[in-house]
């Protein structure tokens, strides 16, 4: 049971992390996501919360980027930008 709660918490943490990252996108920007169309930041955040297909892709994309940072040499990490 504790393990299940931990998984849920991690999932919620991940969603909050992705939402925080999506909020760094300027409000005048839409993301074109293939066949699915173009979405505003607000729409993407809703999709991440619902974890629909587009939302899952956004989570996957942001986590892939964050994981890539862990592979950088330390000096590159020091030069990494703060969120806009």
């Amino acid at each position, binding site marked *: 049971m504790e393990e299940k709660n931990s998984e849920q918490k991690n999932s919620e943490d991940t969603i909050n992390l992705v939402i925080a990252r999506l909020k760094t996108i300027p409000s005048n*920007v839409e*993301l074109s996501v293939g066949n699915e169309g173009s979405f505003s930041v607000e729409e993407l955040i809703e999709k991440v919360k619902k974890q629909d297909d587009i939302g899952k892709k956004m989570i996957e994309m942001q986590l892939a*980027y964050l994981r890539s940072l862990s592979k950088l040499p330390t000096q590159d990490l020091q030069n990494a930008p703060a969120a806009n």
Partner: protein
Amino acid sequence: MLLLLTRPRYDTPTHYLFYWAGLLIDEAKRRGVNFIDLNKSKANKKQLHSYLTKQPVDTVILNGHGSPEAVAGEKNEVILSVGNGTDLFKKRTIFVRACDAGAILGKEIMENGAKGFIGYIQPFIFPADRDCFNEPLKDELAAPVLECSNQIGLSLIKGKSATEAHKDSLVKYAKAIDKYSSSATVNSFLLPILLWNMTSQVCYQ
């Protein structure tokens, strides 16, 4: 060299790709490369298959929406799909700028004798500034992503192989990622998008 492009234009993503692929036509003109431009309503299955059957096309660049098994033209008409047209690319090089088509379609195109294939195994994602909708080529937020994918077309027009064009594009992505990783740069939100498209891009040769 004879180049064939499809450039549907009926929604925001295809509107952008229409203009950005137009830069490839400009480059072809500068280099004296002959080209067939299947734009808007001409980006249909009948015309694509007819040109590929009758003309000595060397290089094909398809822009539009896609899936693992298919690519669409104008108004989302499927113009190429698994088992339907993948044998038209024998000894030809093809770049499919559409979502997911590298996953299954690209492999079948290669199995049917294509010289090289470049595409994506995930959705192709790019940002668009709403204020630039009428002038997509002036969209400074879309440019970093679309310039990197355009590099494939530019390299192919120069006569490079699929592998070389793919590598040229990856180098451009790496430079863009370096640029937007700089602490002095704004718009670091582009980084996950650049990395996503870079790692989703595949080349079979």
